[in-house]
């Protein structure tokens, strides 16, 4: 039932359905034919069904070790654990493109399912745009990177998967990251539909925001997970390398964050409409370019799957079509959109505008830093690179006013703020931040970490005091406060949580700037001290794993003679691929990570020495914890939106049931 040919056929079917989904509703909307437009949700769901069958077939090929399928033969092996046989499906180029289109299909079906309260024409157009993008990617998959290609004669065993990718963190990193990337296709489709319609209003803002927030949550989680993976798998103690591919995920995150905020202004005040439409287009364009950069190998990176020019040309054409087409439409139709209400510079709107400008400036810096080296290579023929020092020097000074504004923004009212009142609201937060500054002076070193740390505390304090003030702390009774906190919109809780999460992440980054490490070469039984802890190499032994051989070290860490923990870092040798990987051992108490890596063995017997890398990383877990809190904040805000948008319909059905 689920063989490679069936999967191939289902993919082709999905592509045809996507093409119909693209053409028919648009034509119907143009001709005002409601029946043609009403086909769109049905087509979106059937497309998803076909894609799901296709994807499931590929998984079954991998699970059943069907090495007559080229993709399985190249990336799997009979001895591979079942989990990685399944997750390995999207660990390679062809499978990941298929996963990408599957997620796009899920987005389309989700709009069809949850968008029942949208006007039919708008929903038809949104689904048509999604169908068009979907069809493009499915054609790419079918024509240049078909995962179902057969190979003859079929090999006895596959070539196996890169051992670095055999990791639970990485197994679930691509689906989450892709959901973030692809999720921004929905706001994009809404923007294009709005341009076709020539109308953007508060209702549009309310419809588009949950989709943007959902995609943003996934992208946040995906980036955090990727960073965590590189921290505990690559074994350098680093968490962000400003690698082009990492930047490719950060860029849409920055514009996506701006979008999530500017859509609030559209929804509440009908302002910044043209800008929000442009941001929606830009965010998805950056997401697409991100994939393009990853897949084409234009940017050298550890993530590049393939350097195939045919694929590069196809993707480039697809990009030009989607981005160029939508921008042309924007240039043509945007002037017809009317601009919204007035506001003073010191107001909630003003702070959100500032947020957008700063985020886009940071984004511009990251884009420049990422694109400058390949352009230089192309134009001047000089190979250059820019790394962490450049990005640190250029982005951190822009982050400081952003953090400052984050604290002020939530305390400001819409339209016009009275400065004296705002200051009185922020007084407590400012005092907490001042205490935080002293704390940072004590704990961190360097001007930027101290300033950023204090500002992170400022953001968190401002979020908490804002919520407390709105709940009525200090001038109302306990029960009244509880009632108020229940009435406070979930989106306010969500925003506060997300801001607190951002503060936690920034604190983690500041803490990591004080990380210490040492590289030592010692005998078994010897002790080295690092930042007040004594690290003793107790023992080293070899053992055999399912598809590798490993050398495991036991390292005891003592503080003033008291045993804190024993780490067991490993070095694994995968024989099939002739590759070694490092298994880092990490002990965390959520304040400090103790991080140990074992390197080479030199010499033999009792005389053997071992190279060890020892790290002490303060506040490291906070970086990813903050990302998680941000995503939870987004999810919280989503739950509010759903209730509000769905409420009238729900009420109507309940009344009918009672009648």
């Amino acid at each position: 039932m689920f063989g490679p040919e069936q999967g191939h056929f289902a993919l082709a079917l999905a592509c045809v359905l996507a093409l119909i989904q693209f053409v028919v509703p648009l034509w119907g909307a143009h001709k005002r034919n409601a029946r043609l437009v009403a086909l769109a949700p049905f087509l979106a769901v059937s497309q998803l069904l076909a894609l799901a069958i296709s994807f499931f077939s590929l998984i079954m090929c991998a699970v059943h070790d069907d090495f007559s399928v080229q993709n399985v033969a190249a990336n799997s092996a009979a001895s591979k654990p079942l989990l990685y046989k399944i997750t390995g499906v999207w660990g390679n180029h062809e499978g990941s493109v298929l996963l990408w289109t599957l997620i796009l299909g899920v987005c389309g079906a989700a709009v069809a399912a949850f968008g029942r309260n949208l006007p039919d024409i708008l929903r038809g157009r949104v689904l048509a745009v999604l169908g068009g993008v979907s069809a493009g990617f499915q054609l790419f998959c079918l024509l240049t990177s078909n995962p179902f290609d057969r190979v003859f004669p079929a090999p006895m065993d596959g070539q196996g998967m890169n051992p670095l990718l055999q990791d639970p963190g990485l197994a679930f990193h691509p689906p989450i990251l892709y959901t973030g990337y692809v999720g921004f296709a929905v706001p994009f489709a809404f923007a294009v539909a709005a341009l076709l319609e020539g109308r953007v209003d508060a209702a549009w803002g309310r419809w588009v925001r949950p989709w943007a927030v959902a995609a943003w949550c996934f992208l946040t989680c995906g980036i955090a997970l990727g960073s965590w993976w590189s921290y505990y798998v690559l074994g350098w103690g680093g968490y962000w390398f400003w690698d082009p591919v990492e930047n490719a995920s950060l860029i849409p995150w920055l514009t996506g964050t701006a979008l999530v905020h500017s859509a609030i202004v559209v929804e509440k005040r009908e302002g910044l409409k043209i800008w929000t439409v442009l941001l929606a287009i830009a965010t998805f364009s950056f997401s697409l370019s991100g994939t393009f950069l990853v897949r084409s190998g234009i940017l050298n990176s550890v993530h590049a799957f393939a350097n195939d020019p045919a694929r590069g040309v196809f993707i480039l054409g697809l990009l030009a079509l989607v981005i160029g087409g939508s921008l042309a439409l924007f240039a043509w139709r945007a002037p017809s959109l009317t601009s919204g209400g007035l506001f003073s510079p010191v107001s909630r709107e003003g702070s959100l505008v500032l947020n957008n400008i700063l985020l886009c400036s940071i984004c511009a810096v990251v884009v420049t830093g990422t694109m400058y080296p390949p352009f230089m290579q192309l134009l001047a023929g000089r190979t250059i690179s820019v790394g962490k020092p450049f990005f640190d020097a250029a982005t951190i000074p822009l982050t400081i006013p952003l953090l400052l504004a984050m604290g002020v923004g939530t305390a400001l009212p819409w339209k016009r703020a009275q400065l004296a009142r705002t200051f009185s609201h922020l007084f407590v937060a400012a005092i907490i931040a001042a205490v935080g500054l002293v704390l940072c002076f004590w704990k961190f070193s360097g001007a930027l970490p101290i300033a950023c740390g204090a500002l992170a505390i400022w953001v968190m304090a401002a979020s908490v005091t804002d919520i407390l003030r709105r709940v009525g702390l200090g001038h109302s009774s306990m029960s009244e406060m509880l009632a108020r906190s229940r009435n406070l919109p979930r989106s306010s809780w969500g925003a506060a949580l997300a801001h607190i999460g951002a503060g936690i992440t920034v604190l983690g980054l500041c803490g990591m700037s004080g990380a210490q490490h040492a590289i030592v070469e010692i005998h078994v039984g010897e002790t080295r001290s690092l930042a007040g802890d004594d690290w003793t190499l107790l023992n080293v032994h070899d053992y055999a794993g399912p598809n590798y051989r490993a050398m495991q070290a036991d390292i005891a860490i003592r503080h003033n003679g008291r045993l804190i923990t024993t780490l067991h870092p490993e070095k694994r040798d995968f024989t099939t691929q002739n590759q070694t990987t490092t298994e880092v051992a990490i002990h965390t108490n959520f304040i400090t990570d103790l991080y140990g890596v074992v390197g080479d063995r030199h010499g033999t017997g009792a005389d053997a020495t071992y190279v060890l890398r020892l790290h002490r990383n303060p506040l490291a877990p906070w970086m990813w914890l903050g990302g998680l809190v941000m995503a939870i904040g987004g999810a919280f805000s989503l739950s509010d939106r759903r209730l509000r948008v769905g409420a009238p319909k729900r009420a109507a059905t309940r009344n009918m049931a009672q009648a």
Partner: protein
Amino acid sequence: MTRKTRRLWIVIACLACISSAAALTLRAFSSNIVFFMAPSQVKANPPSPARTIRLGGMVMAGSLHRITENGAPVNSFNVTDGQAAVEVHYTGILPDLFREGQSVVALGTVQKDGGFTASEVLAKHDETYMPKEVADELKRTGKWDPRFGKAPDAASWDTMTAKKAGG
């Protein structure tokens, strides 16, 4: 507050942010751009010891040796592009994919004596994959012509580079 003054405020804010972003970018570029150099280029005109560069090429077969200095392991190996070789010193654990006879990129500075002190050594995650800079350099020096097929197998780099670079 009229529409015009609001627009003026927004334009001022945009200009302020964008110009500071541009200034920061330019400043950061001028001090932090890292040029890629092949060993022969380093030999021909050595950059100043203050300048960080990326040195790329093949690790010469048989050139890797380790010593322990103050309890820390120091790796020394020669990086070659087939025309010249530069000795690289690196304190730390070499990446898992580091192999003699395979491509490598090292970040660091050229010392007065012509040696190279690396702060970071990168080997690509896919062992069949060659850094683009190294491939370009090989094409430029005539070690590999893409018109005549794929780059030579990693194993053959040993003999190929060691022989020519030695002299």
